């Protein structure tokens, strides 16, 4: 019997700590598949951030550097500059990348660092228990926006994929989701393209992945998936915002 489906070799055969319905697992898998597809596992270095994504090293079978909160693009810059022949990617959440780490991501992008950034947007701080994130939607209730996000007080959610696409240093910027088979297939293709940019030495690539956090949204998995379709995608459109090299 032919085996037609298996765990990517870049992922370890372990259980994750992620909550039921969390989409980090699916995103991990797509990133690992991209690493497998290009045959680059033995020269890939992951840069972990702070939050639910910190355990990158427990799940990915690649070397990993853990960075301070928000600083992954700076750490990745140091690692890539020290070892330009390696494939370096960061994996960061929305609080990490779009709040405390805005300076590091903007400047790494503007320098056109030859890295790949995976940005997981679930509109909340997952690990600390569901506080308001820079991407929390207007009116969305969280533990620190109990009456709902008030734009007059908190500002509007950051649209990072659009924002970064405006910088000359960015070669590729896109937003994807993994809430349906169709979106997963599209996300796989686009994440592969983001890694292709680095494999071919064509510059900085940024992928925003919309993700569900049922635990902190107070929903079950199906409700969370539905919310992603009904509320998140209209605000954060799925699109390739920049594809400089037409890869």
């Amino acid at each position, binding site marked *: 019997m032919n085996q037609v489906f298996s765990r990517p070799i870049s992922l370890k055969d372990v259980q994750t700590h992620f909550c039921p319905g969390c989409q980090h697992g699916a995103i991990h898998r797509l990133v690992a598949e991209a690493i497998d597809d290009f045959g680059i596992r033995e020269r890939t270095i992951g840069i*972990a951030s702070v939050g639910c994504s910190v355990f990158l090293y427990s799940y990915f079978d690649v070397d990993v550097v853990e960075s*301070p909160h928000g600083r992954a693009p700076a750490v990745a810059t140091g690692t890539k500059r020290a070892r330009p022949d390696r494939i370096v990617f960061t994996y960061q959440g929305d609080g990490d990348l779009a709040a405390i780490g805005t300076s590091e991501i903007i400047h790494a992008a503007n320098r056109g660092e030859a890295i790949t950034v995976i940005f997981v947007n679930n509109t909340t701080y997952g690990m600390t228990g569901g506080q308001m994130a820079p991407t929390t939607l207007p009116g969305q209730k969280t533990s620190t926006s109990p009456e709902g996000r008030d734009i007059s007080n908190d500002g509007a959610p950051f649209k990072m994929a659009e924002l970064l696409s405006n910088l000359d240093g960015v070669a590729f910027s896109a937003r994807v989701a993994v809430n349906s088979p169709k979106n997963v297939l599209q996300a796989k293709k686009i994440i592969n393209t983001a890694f292709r940019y680095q494999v071919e030495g064509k510059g900085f690539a940024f992928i925003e992945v919309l993700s569900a956090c049922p635990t902190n949204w107070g929903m079950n998995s199906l409700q969370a998936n539905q919310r992603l379709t009904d509320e998140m995608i209209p605000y954060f459109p799925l699109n390739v915002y920049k594809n400089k090299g037409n890869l």
Partner: protein
Amino acid sequence: MSEKIFVKGNEAVAMAAIEAGLRCYFGYPITPQSDIPEYLARELPKTGGTFIQVESEIGAINMVLGASAAGARAMTSSSGPGISLKQEGISYMAGSELPGVIVDIMRQGPGLGGIDASQADYWQATRGGGHGGYRIIVLAPASVQEMYDLTMRAFDLSDLYRIPAMVLADSVIGQMKESIVANPRPEVDLPAKEWAVRGRREGEPQNVVKSLKLGDGEMEAFHWAMHDRYKVLADRESLWEEIQTGDAELIVTAFGSTARISRTAVDMAREAGLKVGLMRPITLFPFPSHAYLALSQRCKRFLDIELSTGQMIDDVRLSVARDTEVSFYGRPPGAGSLPTPEEIFQQIRKVYP
């Protein structure tokens, strides 16, 4: 290679770093250390190294973290306000057992302070500086030659012990020019960086550089291991200089720029027939406590001189024998507050037995 060259203290740091095999420098402009990034922007790329002027001190220290994790010799430099910003990254490096060199050309504070000489960051440097309870290696040059020699030493010590190392000077030492010999990098036996990330090959272990330690007893074991490593460091790597301490009735003690001024004051005292010596710690961490203890077995009076209201004096008092009298003369940092040799000589007369 005994040819003498005439350079600034800050330039000597940059030259020594390149000689020591610096691969990556990440920095941000701040007075009085900007000669270091300026020199390295010009010279480091010629050696195949990377220079980046970073958007912030926070970005710079985290690039040092990333480059060091990949096994490269990496450095950043700054002064007071910038060093405060770097403390987050230094703490993560300490927690991840990463080497790396941080140069601090001290200026006045707190806050924006001013750009004249200061030694008021002694506590920040020698007590770790960031959160979590750790120490870093701190070397305090008192001449341009030492700026060169101790910068090279900082790289070797940091690699050997996997502890970040700081070169701690001030604007007097950083900005003045002296003739030095730019010695070649000394031969030092260093272990291979087998812990560095490099891309995990089949059959090799996965390398992870991290400071998160959640396992049962893992963090406690880390702290005790580092505690033991600091002791080894103190036993093997403490450096200090003694001048005319053999028959001294009074020992003046100071580091960096104040040690230079104090040395002239000690000469003046000797000319006046007073038996005065100088004890200058070169490593501030590890502090040469055993040398102070030995000195205080025979000389019972010390005079500590600092450009602050007194910080190193804590370590002096903790080190000397209990019946030792430690006096203090300080000039907290400020424009025009650098003491003259005559001023220190007056203090010597005041406390001399």
